């Protein structure tokens, strides 16, 4: 038996497998296929202040081992979310990570304030949004803008609610952004968001997506995601990380733990298999057991350990034999 408990800052979770923002709506649809309370937590689609139509179709293009999406954060707005979605999640006994998104620091702050008196287990701040006050530059690509948003949200949110910054991989030095949001008061970091991509339709000779560019997700981006988790764990070793990017199996999830994530989000895999999160959780447990880890905590960041540390931590386990 592996101790599957983990934590993201002050939030204790029974297991380390969560959904990923935008890949589970607000849990209800997936509830037909799995028990949402059995997951580490449900991470909601990013909520914004006002209702949003999202972008015109086509919004999706399949790519090798992945997909591009250009939804444009279609959603009902925070009021409808609080009135219907959040109570439903609570009723199911699901732990709830609310992803928030905005076009200005003020919008993020307003969202954090609206959530103050509601049962929210963690706030994930989606900063991969264009900043309308800075000619549309994405917050997550600018250490200053990113840290402004995070420190403002941290001050506005309930002090007991951990605030995680969700980082974009589309930056030169993700460690620098990680240090900036850590200094700004982030309780943890979620990574990675999608990579910006494009497909051109060779029949119409135009970009395939209505929004022209889209976010690339799925196993195609997994090595990038693992690398980012590795680098950010190096940059801010004491901060809890929620890792994601193309996780399809328990083995994939294990890579993220070993790179330094305390928990993982399962995203695009849900489109392939709506029960993927619970399957991956079961697979991860047997992977941890196979490797001789007694707990999730023992595996977090293990790939960074020196040979001497590994021997001491693993005790009698024959590491050579495992890796063969």
């Amino acid at each position, binding site marked *: 038996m592996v101790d599957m408990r983990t934590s993201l800052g002050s939030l204790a979770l029974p297991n380390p497998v969560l959904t990923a923002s935008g890949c589970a709506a607000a849990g209800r649809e997936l509830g037909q296929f799995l028990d949402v309370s059995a997951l580490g937590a449900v991470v909601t689609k990013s909520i914004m202040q006002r209702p949003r139509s999202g972008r015109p179709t086509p919004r*999706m293009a399949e790519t090798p081992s992945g997909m591009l999406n250009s939804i444009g954060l279609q959603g009902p707005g925070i009021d409808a979310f609080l009135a219907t979605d959040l109570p439903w999640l609570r009723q199911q006994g699901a732990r709830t990570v609310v992803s928030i998104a905005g076009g200005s620091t003020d919008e993020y702050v307003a969202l954090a304030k609206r959530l103050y008196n509601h049962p929210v287990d963690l706030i994930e701040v989606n900063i991969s949004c264009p900043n309308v006050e800075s000619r549309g530059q994405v917050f997550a690509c600018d250490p200053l803008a990113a840290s402004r948003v995070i420190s403002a949200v941290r001050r506005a949110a309930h002090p007991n609610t951990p605030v995680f910054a969700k980082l974009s991989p589309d930056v030169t030095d993700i460690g620098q952004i990680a240090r900036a949001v850590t200094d700004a008061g982030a309780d943890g970091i979620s990574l990675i968001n999608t990579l910006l991509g494009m497909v051109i339709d060779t029949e119409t000779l135009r970009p395939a997506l209505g929004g022209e560019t889209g976010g690339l997700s799925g196993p195609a981006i997994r090595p990038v995601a693992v690398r980012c988790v590795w680098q950010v764990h190096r940059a801010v070793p004491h901060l809890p990380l929620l890792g994601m990017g193309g996780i399809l199996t328990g083995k994939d999830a294990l890579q993220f733990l070993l790179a330094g994530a305390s928990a993982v989000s399962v995203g695009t895999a849900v489109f392939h298999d709506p029960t993927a999160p619970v399957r991956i959780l079961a697979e991860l447990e047997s992977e941890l057991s196979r490797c001789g880890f007694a707990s999730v905590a023992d595996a977090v960041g293990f790939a960074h350990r020196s040979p001497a540390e590994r021997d001491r931590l693993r005790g009698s386990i024959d590491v050579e034999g495992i890796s063969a």
Partner: protein
Amino acid sequence: MQEIGEIFDVTRLGSYTQFTVVAPGVARSFQPGQFVAVTVGGPETSMLLRRSFALYGVKPGTQFAGTIQFVVAAHGRGTEWLVRQPVGTKLDLVGPLGVPFPIPREPVPAVLVGGGYGSAPLLPLAERLLELGSDLTMILGAASADRLFGQLAAKRLIGSVTVTTDDGSAGQRGRVTDPLPSAIEQLGAQIVYACGPMPMLAAVGEVAQAHAIPAQVAVEESMACGIGVCMTCVLPVRGDDGVSRFVRSCVEGPVFDAGRVRWADVGRLPADLFGADGMGH
């Protein structure tokens, strides 16, 4: 529900491939108009998104023998993989999904219009309407004869089937909307049901509207998940409150009242759409 089905029969029909799959769970609760989402490419696939197909030929059967049918047109890597699969192949299925065709309580004269393999979901619908005692006629259209689907099955069911092809290679040359007005008038139809490409559904909707009768149409929109999570398959649809929204064709469709769909705005973002003002810039 999610179920591993097994291919029981594969039949080539013109440009299409018809699959009969043992899937008692999907078969059990099926209603005409619903679809199934199928994984493609096998266990180590690089194609993550399910392909969705309208269901027909569903035999609930006994506890052990429920089968479903769907028809595939190979037009991409995923469907090309699927049509190569032999009898006995296991398929990962999620279904039945979506809102079915509304069935009137009383028998109502109806015209059914199918474009290409869009006629597939109309076959079980016709069966259901005939059980009610409704008078039916059916119009099947396609670009060419090899792209017609379900002609024989429709003839067996309801006798009178009108066929149109763009190139005149079968039936009368032209579009399904050419014979539609007279079909509505001759039958005294009170409703039109249709499935096919979007421009055809828009045109069918216009004809129905000109005759002051409703048209219930099933759209063929590409979907990533099929279960209402990904938000990729949206269409601009006017609601009961008169407000237009992007709605998901997988869970709020695939069947819509044609008069509610803003066909001219598909692929666009009309300024009056709910939440369009929240998009900024």
